[in-house]
């Protein structure tokens, strides 16, 4: 396929269509609305299902229903709308049906603004819904990655009967880049052994539910979810690395924060600073092993996010106090620029760094001092 | 001469709620206090003649515990007609 110039949001919509999306349910919200608008035209053209739901609550439960019917289904939204889906997501997880949800994150909390943000990392990765469950969470940093990960999200969701979220910020959603679309996959319904699509003379009735009155049964269900999660952790970790081989310092950042860091890393390299970049592509499962190994040899980590340090905790869990960790974040829709990250790299490279330090607290002091 | 009918009440389903009893137009039903269902209820039963097989008991039963039969008598030509 030749390269075409795609806008992130529309690329995600078309990629989902190519991946065999059979039904879309969504509700308008900036900066995600282009996905819904694109599909409002595209899906009916193809004779597929498009419904603008009455709300995100309605949308996620329509997704839940269609997922139970065994078709490829997706919803997309942005931060406040995704918060309204937490009950539904917990039900979907508890019912063990596959579903894809895209969150084009915006500045928060509350109504906040529509600028690019990564403030929903914890909600997505550590489960904003009630109860124990872990979704797969993919974090594209470019339009091409947005396309590839959207397609992947459907396969993973079905393979593991789980929720697969794609989280990106407004930058990736609004940006245009050359990208290649995959071939159109035919819509075929896998004959899932679990789908409640009507007996149709073929089989015994099926039930899909998330209620297990007997705690022992519910615990078994939780263990079933955990065993899938174990497989996911073993098989599905994905990340991109830049200049890590000889890196003395490692920046860890996902999505836009990651690619902004790449620019800074290049300049720093020109200035002779041996810094590398690790950009998690799956933030859940989190690339623990590679960080674990890096922690053995590098002299410091710099975590950069467009939030107050959410992924930071996962990095700290992986590093286990073996190397100093520093943090730089911008919040509320502010996108860090390469110059800022470069300064941070220089600061970190200059040292001294302390393992005992609380990176978040130190960062807060710097932020409030400078303001 | 009214149709003759009778019913069977399933011990698996009956919960002794008495709705059938109060609905039966012939007042031929009552709870059988001499028996307990596995769930520990006194099941309903017919305690005297007069059931017409009208099936009203079945209609009002919330637990689909009742089966109703009716005896239908009709003339047939004799063999050597």
């Amino acid at each position: 396929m030749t390269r075409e110039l795609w806008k992130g949001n529309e690329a995600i919509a078309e990629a989902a269509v190519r991946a065999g999306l059979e039904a879309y349910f969504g509700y308008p919200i900036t900066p995600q609305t282009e996905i819904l608008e694109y599909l409002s035209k595209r899906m009916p053209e193809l004779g597929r299902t498009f419904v603008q739901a009455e709300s995100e609550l309605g949308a996620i439960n329509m997704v839940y229903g269609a997922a139970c019917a065994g078709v490829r289904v997706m919803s997309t939204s942005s931060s406040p709308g995704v918060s309204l889906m937490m009950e539904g997501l917990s039900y979907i997880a508890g019912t063990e049906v596959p579903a894809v949800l895209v969150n084009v994150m915006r500045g928060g909390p509350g109504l906040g603004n529509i600028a690019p943000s990564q403030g929903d990392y914890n909600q997505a990765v550590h489960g904003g819904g009630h109860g124990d469950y872990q979704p797969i969470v993919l974090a594209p940093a470019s339009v091409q990655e947005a396309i590839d990960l959207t397609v992947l999200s459907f396969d993973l969701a079905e393979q593991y009967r789980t929720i697969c979220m794609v989280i990106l910020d407004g930058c990736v959603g609004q940006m245009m880049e050359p990208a290649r679309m995959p071939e159109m996959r035919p819509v075929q319904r896998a004959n899932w052994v679990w789908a409640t699509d009507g007996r149709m003379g073929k089989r015994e009735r099926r039930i899909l539910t998330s209620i297990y009155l007997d705690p022992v049964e519910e615990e078994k269900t939780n263990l079933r979810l955990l065993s899938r999660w174990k497989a996911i952790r073993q098989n599905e970790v994905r990340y991109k690395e830049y200049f890590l081989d000889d890196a003395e310092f490692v920046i860890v950042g996902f999505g836009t924060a990651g690619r902004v860091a790449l620019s800074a890393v290049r300049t720093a390299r020109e200035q002779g600073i041996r810094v590398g970049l690790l950009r998690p592509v799956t933030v859940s499962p989190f690339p623990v092993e590679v960080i674990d190994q890096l922690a053995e040899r590098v002299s410091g980590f710099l975590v950069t996010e467009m939030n107050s340090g959410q992924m930071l905790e996962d990095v700290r869990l992986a590093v286990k106090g073996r190397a100093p960790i520093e943090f730089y974040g911008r919040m509320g829709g502010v996108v860090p620029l390469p110059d800022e990250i470069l300064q941070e790299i220089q600061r970190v490279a200059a040292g001294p760094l302390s393992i005992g330090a609380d990176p978040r607290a130190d960062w807060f002091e710097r932020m409030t001092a400078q303001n | 001469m009214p149709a003759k009918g009778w019913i069977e009440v399933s011990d698996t389903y009956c919960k002794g709620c008495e709705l059938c009893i109060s609905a039966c137009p012939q007042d031929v039903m009552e709870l059988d206090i001499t028996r307990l269902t596995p769930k520990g209820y006194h099941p309903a039963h017919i305690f005297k003649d007069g059931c017409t097989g009208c099936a009203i008991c079945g209609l009002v039963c919330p637990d689909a515990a009742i089966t109703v039969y009716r005896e239908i008598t009709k003339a047939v030509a004799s063999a050597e007609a």
Partner: protein
Amino acid sequence: MQKETIIAGFGGQGVLFGGQVLAYAAMDAGKEVTWIPSYGPEMRGGTANCTVIIADDEIGSPLVKNPPLAIALNLPSFDKYEELLAPGGTLIVNQSMVDREARRDDIRVIFVPCNEIAEEIGNKRLLNMVAVGALLTVLPEITIKDVEHALEGHLPERHKHLLPMNYEALRRGFEAAQKVPA
């Protein structure tokens, strides 16, 4: 090679499309490119801008603080980007909408009367193409031909009849910029 350009102006001046044409041209020329608009709240009117980055390798940040290149189609944008431009950079300014001289001397400022030229050509909405033409004088990686192909390939059907005018706008802008002493 990596070059960052910011195009800024009023909402109606075709800022975003100007940037997209550049992006299409770069893509067709086999380059890596990013185009990103300043997307604000649903506020009508006001100024708009977009950042176009053209490079040989994978592009990192889609945004820059101090671009080496910029197009300012109105006064507020001139004020803003004259300040932000990287030293040694070049700023294309739509002379038709600004009434002042340049302030910095460590950058090159090229004044082009985009509106007038566009009106001469016969369609004042072409002022963005005039500016893009002018920009190409300092963006040798992209040729006028590249941009013309981009327009040919990506101008909406209903506007295809305007292609010749667009080509002329590019050329006139290019020439006007060349005339300006370096």
